[in-house]
């Protein structure tokens, strides 16, 4: 099992360690609900060093990126970030990722840990004809996410970067503690917050995490684990690769049309398939649901729509902040409207579910 450079800090903070995508990471420290509520009301500090960092550098870096992603990276300016799909020829997901424009001809792409090797090979293969250097530098980088209403105050104590003017999906480079870092106003929780990327040895990485946790006490912020990360992102209806998006569901079916720019002036993988699908219309769509009956509909539980089996729940949990069972599922388009009802098999029982508006949770600005 691989260990992040922050591993020592997790043990010091008595994190309950589990295996995740080949990494030893904390699923929780004080408790999933407590950590979830802390992020919604004060702050949470996460080690997300397992995420992958791939750099694109060279004269045709932008063209190479444009060729493999769904969004229009030509809209980026230095210091700006974009969410996009890394697409198959069929318009489905190899992965979802963030594109950071460092400067002209230099970009950072942040990908899921579970897909890193696959993504890197895919990127190399499909950008070979461009004048670009694609480098997987994930091993060098640690990443800490600080999320929640108090995140700005907490992170500001550690950096010379002025965080206040930093907009959502923007980043700045500067010192954090005594290290060079990239600090972006991004996250996977539905709250305001930051993601800090830096290179250091294990001692310095663990120290930063412990210092954040220590200083965080002043704001009632807590170290938070993978458990809360998953329930937080689901309340905010942020897709999880392998659950809600994968290489068998298209960008349009995943209801992520806003990251698809068919007319970006550059041909890209999946473009033809998606243009066709847009014209013909999709037949199924990812929707959010609440359980009407008691229980929790979890990932993989079978679904019945109008008497016929139709796939399974892609993500489901009891939402700790909203205090109700929620989930995501692909439904036939004619049964995917708000208020439509369907059944979920929860072991030997059947529970009624209803399509609801998403995101389930939206923070007040």
């Amino acid at each position, binding site marked *: 099992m691989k260990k992040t450079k922050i591993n020592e800090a997790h043990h010091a903070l008595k994190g309950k360690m589990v295996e995740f995508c080949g990494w030893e990471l904390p*699923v*929780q420290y004080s*408790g*999933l*609900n407590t950590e*979830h509520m802390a992020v919604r009301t004060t702050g949470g500090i996460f080690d997300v060093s397992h995420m992958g960092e791939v750099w694109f550098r060279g004269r045709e870096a932008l063209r190479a990126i444009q060729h493999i992603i769904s969004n229009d990276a030509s809209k980026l300016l230095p210091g700006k970030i974009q969410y996009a799909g890394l697409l198959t020829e069929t318009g489905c997901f190899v992965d979802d990722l963030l594109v950071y424009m460092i400067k002209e001809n230099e970009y950072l792409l942040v990908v899921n840990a579970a897909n890193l090797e696959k993504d890197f090979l895919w990127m190399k293969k499909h950008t070979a004809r461009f004048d670009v250097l694609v480098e997987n530098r994930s091993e060098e980088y640690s990443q800490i996410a600080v999320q929640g209403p108090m995140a700005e105050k907490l992170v500001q104590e550690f950096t010379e970067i002025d965080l206040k003017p930093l907009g959502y999906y923007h980043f700045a480079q500067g010192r954090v503690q005594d290290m060079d870092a990239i600090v972006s106003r991004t996250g996977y929780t539905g709250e305001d917050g930051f993601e800090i990327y830096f290179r250091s040895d294990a001692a310095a990485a663990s120290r930063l995490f412990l210092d954040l946790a220590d200083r965080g006490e002043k704001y009632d912020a807590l170290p938070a684990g993978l*458990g809360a990360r998953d*329930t937080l992102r689901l309340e905010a209806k942020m897709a999880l690769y392998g659950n809600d998006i994968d290489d068998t569901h298209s960008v349009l079916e995943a209801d992520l049309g806003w990251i698809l720019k068919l007319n970006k002036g550059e041909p890209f993988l999946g473009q033809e398939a998606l243009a066709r699908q847009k014209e013909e219309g999709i037949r199924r769509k990812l929707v959010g649901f609440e359980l009407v009956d*008691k*229980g*929790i509909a*979890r990932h993989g539980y079978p679904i019945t729509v109008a008497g016929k089996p139709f796939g399974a729940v892609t993500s489901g*949990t*009891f939402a*700790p902040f909203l205090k109700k*069972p929620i989930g995501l599922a692909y439904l036939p388009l004619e049964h995917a409207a708000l208020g439509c009802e369907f059944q979920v098999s929860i*072991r030997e*029982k059947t529970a009624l579910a209803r399509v609801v508006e998403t995101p389930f949770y939206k923070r007040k600005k």
Partner: protein
Amino acid sequence: MAKENLLYSKDHEWVLREGNAVTVGITDYAQHELGDVVFVDLPAVGKGLKKGDPAANIESVKAVSDVYSPVTGKVSDVNAKLGDHPELVNQDPFGDGWIFKLSVDQVSELDELMDLKKYEEYLKGIAGE
């Protein structure tokens, strides 16, 4: 933290014997492993259960787990309070967080359960794994 006067199963249920009836719940170790309980699916009163049958489901945010019947018998009562207050399983696992009661067919089956000392040794074995 477990209790003296109770019997324990390897699945971390506790059993309180009162004549031919038993009360069943999950141990403090079990509730801690599960995390915050948000829903308890209780058995129907009158339902016959064999030793080892799944009797109830406990849903925490993290996972779902079965509560097995530690002996053969018939469900005589369930803790209806858990319907609105599933968190009692976390807050008071040996008290208000009890789950169901059984009238026991063969009292001798209880002999196969562990006493506190054996259960504590069993927990140490798990921790050492």
